[in-house]
C-alpha cells in the first residue's frame, strides 16, 4: 500500500488541501484589499474636510434663498467603476429607480460604470452621457468641471445630484441635492435682492457653482465608497478566517480517519497471515 502521508488522494476533495489552500489565498487577498482601502479611506476623509467647506459655501445661494425647482429634471448620478464596496452602488441605484417609479425621469447623466450597469436595463434610454475611468484615483477639480460642462450642455429646469453622503466610517446614505437651473433662478424675484446681477454674471456664477457642488458630491461619494470597501473586505477576511478554521478541523479529522483505516487494514492483514 502507498503511504499517503495525509495528501489529497483518497480524501474527499471537499475537505481536501486544495480547498483549504484556496480559502487561505482568498483571505490574503481580502486582507490586503482591506489595508489598501483603509489607506485610501484615510486620504479621502482628509480631502473631504475642505471639500465640505467649499461645497457648503457654493450652495449657500440655494440654501439661503427659496428658488423653486422646475419640472424638467436632469439626474446626475455619482458612482464609480469599482465594486466590492458593500451597498454603495446598489443603494444609489435603488434611490434613483424609486424616484423614477414615482415620477418618470427623462434625462440622466451617469458618472461611473457601476451605476450605468445597474440602471441600464430600466433607464438606459434616459442616458444623455456617461463617464468612466472613475474611482482609480481621487477626483480632481478638473474632473468636476468636465462633468459640470456636460450637465450644462443640456436643457433642464433642475439638476438633481444623487450621491452617497458620508456620515461616518460605518455609515453613509444616498442623498439627492437639487440645483435650480439659470432659467429657474432668473424667473425668481429673490435673485434680484443681490446687487450686480445680470445674465452674464449669473451664467458664469452658475457654471462655477455647479462645478463646485459636483466636486463636493464626488468627494462625499469617494469617502463613502472607501469606508464601505474597507468594511466589506474586513468582513470577508473574517469570514475567510472562520472558514479556514472549520476546514482545517474537518481536514484533520478526515486525515486521521484515513490513517486509522489504513492501520486497521495493516493490522488485520497481519493477523490474517498468522
Amino acid at each position, binding site marked *: 500500500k502507498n503511504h499517503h502521508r495525509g495528501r489529497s488522494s483518497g480524501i474527499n476533495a471537499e475537505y481536501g488541501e486544495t480547498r483549504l489552500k484556496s480559502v487561505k489565498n482568498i483571505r490574503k487577498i481580502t486582507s490586503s484589499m482591506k489595508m489598501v482601502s483603509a489607506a485610501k479611506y484615510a486620504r479621502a476623509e482628509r480631502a473631504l*474636510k*475642505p471639500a465640505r*467647506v467649499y461645497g*457648503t*459655501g457654493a450652495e*449657500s445661494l440655494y440654501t439661503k434663498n427659496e428658488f423653486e425647482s422646475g419640472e424638467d429634471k436632469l439626474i446626475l448620478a455619482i458612482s464609480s467603476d469599482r465594486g466590492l464596496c458593500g451597498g454603495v452602488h446598489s443603494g444609489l441605484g435603488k434611490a434613483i429607480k424609486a424616484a423614477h417609479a414615482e415620477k418618470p425621469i427623462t434625462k440622466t447623466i451617469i458618472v461611473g460604470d457601476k451605476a450605468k450597469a445597474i440602471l441600464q436595463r430600466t433607464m438606459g434610454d434616459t442616458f444623455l452621457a456617461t463617464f468612466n475611468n472613475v474611482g482609480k484615483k481621487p477626483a480632481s*477639480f478638473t474632473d468636476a468641471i468636465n462633468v459640470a460642462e456636460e450637465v450644462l450642455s443640456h436643457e433642464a429646469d433642475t439638476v438633481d445630484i444623487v450621491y452617497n453622503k458620508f456620515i461616518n466610517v460605518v455609515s453613509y446614505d444616498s442623498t439627492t441635492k437639487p440645483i435650480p437651473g439659470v432659467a429657474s433662478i432668473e424667473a425668481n424675484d429673490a435673485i434680484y*435682492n443681490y*446687487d450686480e446681477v445680470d445674465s452674464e454674471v449669473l451664467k458664469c456664477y452658475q457654471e462655477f457653482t455647479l462645478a463646485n457642488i459636483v*466636486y463636493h458630491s464626488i468627494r462625499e461619494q469617494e469617502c463613502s465608497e472607501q469606508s464601505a470597501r474597507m468594511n466589506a473586505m474586513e468582513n470577508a477576511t473574517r469570514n475567510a478566517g472562520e472558514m479556514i478554521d472549520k476546514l482545517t478541523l474537518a481536514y484533520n479529522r478526515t486525515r486521521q480517519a484515513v490513517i486509522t483505516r489504513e492501520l486497521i487494514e495493516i493490522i488485520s492483514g497481519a493477523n490474517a497471515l498468522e
Partner: protein
Amino acid sequence: MAFRTIAVRTAALCRRAMATEAGSTFPLTFSSPTSALFNEAAVKQVDIPSTTGHFGILPNHVPTIAILLPGVVSITTEAGDIQKFFVSSGTATIHADSTVQILAEEICDVADIDGNAARAALEASKSKLASASSEADKAAAQIEVDVYEGMVAVA
C-alpha cells in the same frame, strides 16, 4: 417725564448697539477645493478683485454676486492683521444675513509667490498669446497672461 427718560435711554442703547454692529465682524468662508482657509470665521473686512471692479466688503454690505478676477484677496482679521492671498479665479457671494463666501479655484499665499518664476512665466505666456491662432487658444493664452500679470504685480 418717566417715559421721556426711558425713551431717551432706550434710544441711546439702540444707537450704541448699532454702532457696535457696524464696527463688528462678519462670517467669512474663503476656500478652494483642496483647502478651506476661513470657515465662517469672523473677519472685519475683505477686499476682492472682481469683474465689476476691486471692492471692499464690510459688515452689512449689500447682498452681491461677483465673479473674481486673478488678483489679491486681502482679509483683515478680527485681531486686526491683514492677510493677502492670490486667487486664480472664482466667485464671491454676499448674503443678506451678512455671511460672505469667497470660493476660488486656486489660492496661494502672496508670500509664496516666486517673483522670478512669475515674470518668466509671464514672458512665455505673452509670446504664446502672440502666436495663438484659434479663438480658443487666444482666450486660453489671454487667461494665462492675466494670471501671471496679477502675480507679478504682487510678487
